[in-house]
């Protein structure tokens, strides 16, 4: 064990560095998410035409969610193949559900 301590320490140092690097990305991601939110609210408050606003804010929301999933929830790291598969399957089922309920409800 005693011999390992040094290499373990080095490893820990390496990890810490790596974590720090990741954290920087996270803060950057956060800044972009805030920016997107500002744009979305700004478009609505400025009263831009709904034909333009609605698709844009939906895309901004989708991108923001991908940031959450891939950076904050670490889906970009290895070992997330099955989670990604299941999340995308869930999104597939979700899109079908929303599509059906917002179009074919026989009004």
């Amino acid at each position, binding site marked *: 064990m005693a011999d390992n301590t040094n290499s373990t320490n080095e490893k820990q140092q390496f990890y810490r560095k790596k*974590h720090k690097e990741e954290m920087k990305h996270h803060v950057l991601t956060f800044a972009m998410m805030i920016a997107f939110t500002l744009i979305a609210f700004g478009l609505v408050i400025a009263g831009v035409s709904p034909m333009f606003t609605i698709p844009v804010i939906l895309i901004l929301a989708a991108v923001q969610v991908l940031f959450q999933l891939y950076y904050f929830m670490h889906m970009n790291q290895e070992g997330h193949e099955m989670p990604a598969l299941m999340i995308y399957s869930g999104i597939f089922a979700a899109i079908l559900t929303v599509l059906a309920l917002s179009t074919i409800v026989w009004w």
Partner: protein
Amino acid sequence: MADDMLKSTNLPQNPERATLEGRNKFMGFWFFLGGETVLFASLFGTYLALKNSTVDGPAANEIFGLELVFLMTIILLTSSLTSVYAMYHMKNNDPKKMQLWLGITVALGLAFLGLEIYEFYHYVHGYHFGYTTSAFSSAFYTLVGFHGAHVAFGLGWIISLMVRNAKRGINLYNAPKFYIASLYWHFIDVVWVFIFTVVYLMGKVG
């Protein structure tokens, strides 16, 4: 082996996935979130189907105030970042800082919940927009309320984790628990992103 689970030294890089139990929790929770996606999609779909069914009650663009929603959004987004900080310190095996950031997350979550309760109170008493007013009001309160209930549950979860592990370090037994609680918290944020976009912003646009 059982003792190793509770040791706080020499943690591997991803302590939340270092044991089979941890990997199971990690996987299982992600899959659960996949199911939650469909749960909220069903609520969103219901809301979209009923958003114009206001009957005699107020409509979306008459009641929503964007200032409050913006504030709530910023608070919840920030709490997502603070929980990332908590996980950063967990991976660095720094339990004190982790607890601190979790504490900040909880405080922001409570602020969000408080504002949401104020918002609902305001709708009910200021606009006579109750749960039973119209199909639209039922759908609105159910969708946003489900999200609020998730926030409340998440707060209870994180607080009980903090209390339980207040006097001990991070180990292979509790690291997965902290990690999936933070996943849950991010997911709450994911849902909110769609709520503020689809319910509030699109409601305001018309």
